[in-house]
C-alpha cells in the first residue's frame, strides 16, 4: 500500500515535471527561421550549384578541357565538348552541366587541377522546366563576386 502510494506520487511528480518543461518552453523564443524573409548565413563551404568563376578583369574562365571532372563525376552530370583553337590546341567548346543529375558531391571541384570550378552558395535553383536544368557553364558570363548570393566559397581550406 505504501509503495503504491509512493509510486503514484512519483508518477504524478514526473508527469508534472514534463508539464513544467513544455510550459517553460512556451516562454522561450522559438528557433524557427521564417525562411524567405529571414535567412541563415551559410558557412563558407556550403555546396550549392556548380559555377565556373571568371576573372573579374578579363572575363576568362580557367578551364582547360582536361576532362578530369567529367571522368570523376559519379552521375555523369558533366559533359564537355572540345574543339581546336587557331593554334591547334584543344580548348573548351561547351561545358554542359546537367543540374538535374547533380548530387552536389563536389568531386569535380576537388579534382580540378586548375581551380576552374566552384560550388557556389546558390541553392534556390528550382525551375519550371526540365530543359532549363541543362546549363552551359562557359556561357554564363556573370562575374561571381561576394554580392551574389553569399559569395563564392574558397576552394582551399580557410
Amino acid at each position, binding site marked *: 500500500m505504501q509503495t503504491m502510494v509512493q509510486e503514484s506520487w512519483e508518477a504524478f511528480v514526473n508527469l508534472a515535471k514534463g508539464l513544467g518543461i513544455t510550459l517553460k518552453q512556451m516562454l522561450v523564443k522559438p528557433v524557427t527561421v521564417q525562411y524567405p524573409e529571414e535567412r541563415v548565413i551559410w558557412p563558407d563551404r556550403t555546396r550549392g550549384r556548380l559555377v565556373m568563376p571568371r576573372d573579374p578583369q578579363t572575363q576568362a574562365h580557367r578551364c582547360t578541357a582536361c576532362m578530369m571532372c567529367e571522368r570523376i563525376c559519379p552521375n*555523369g552530370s558533366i559533359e564537355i565538348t572540345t574543339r581546336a583553337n587557331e593554334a591547334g590546341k584543344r580548348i573548351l567548346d561547351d561545358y554542359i552541366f546537367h543540374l538535374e543529375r547533380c548530387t552536389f558531391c563536389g568531386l569535380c571541384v576537388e579534382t580540378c587541377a586548375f581551380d576552374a570550378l566552384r560550388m557556389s552558395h546558390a541553392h534556390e535553383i528550382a525551375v519550371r522546366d526540365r530543359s532549363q536544368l541543362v546549363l552551359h557553364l562557359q556561357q554564363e558570363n556573370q562575374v561571381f563576386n561576394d554580392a551574389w548570393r553569399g559569395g563564392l566559397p574558397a576552394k582551399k581550406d580557410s
Partner: protein
Amino acid sequence: MSTVSLESLRQAFPQAAVEEAGGFGPAVILTSVQELPAAVQRLQALKSQALDVCEDYTALEEGDNYILVLHLVASADVTARVTLKAPVAKATAEAPSLTPWYGIANWYEREVFDMYGIRFVGHPDLRRILLPEDWVGHPLRKDYSDDKLLKRPGA
C-alpha cells in the same frame, strides 16, 4: 585475445581448405556446397567459441561459380570469426538452406536468391525480398543486363 586458432579449424575440417586470411577473421574455410550444413554444424559445435552468429551471408561471382560467403562470429567471443566460402556451380545454382541453424539465414538466403538466383533447398519461403515479385533476372549476376538501369548518363 582468444580467437579461433587455425590448428583447431584444420582439425575440425580435415577435407576443407583452411587458409589464413587477413580480411575478416583469422581463417577462410573453403568447403563444398554439399558440406555447407555440416560445416556450419561443426562450427557451431566448437567449444566455447561456437560460431553461432551469421553476421553476413552473401554471394559473389567467380568464373563458373557463384561463391557463397558467410561471415560467422561467435556470440561468446566476438574476436572469434571465420569466413566460410562454398562455391556453387552456375549450371545448377542450388545450395542447401541454412535456415535451421541461423534465424537470419531465412532473409539472407532470400536476398541471395533475389540477387543471384541461387535456389536454397529446404528454405521455407524462398521469394524475392528486395525486388518486386515479377522482376525478371537476378541483377547481381555479371551477365545480367538491363539497358535502362545500367546506362550511366554521360558515361
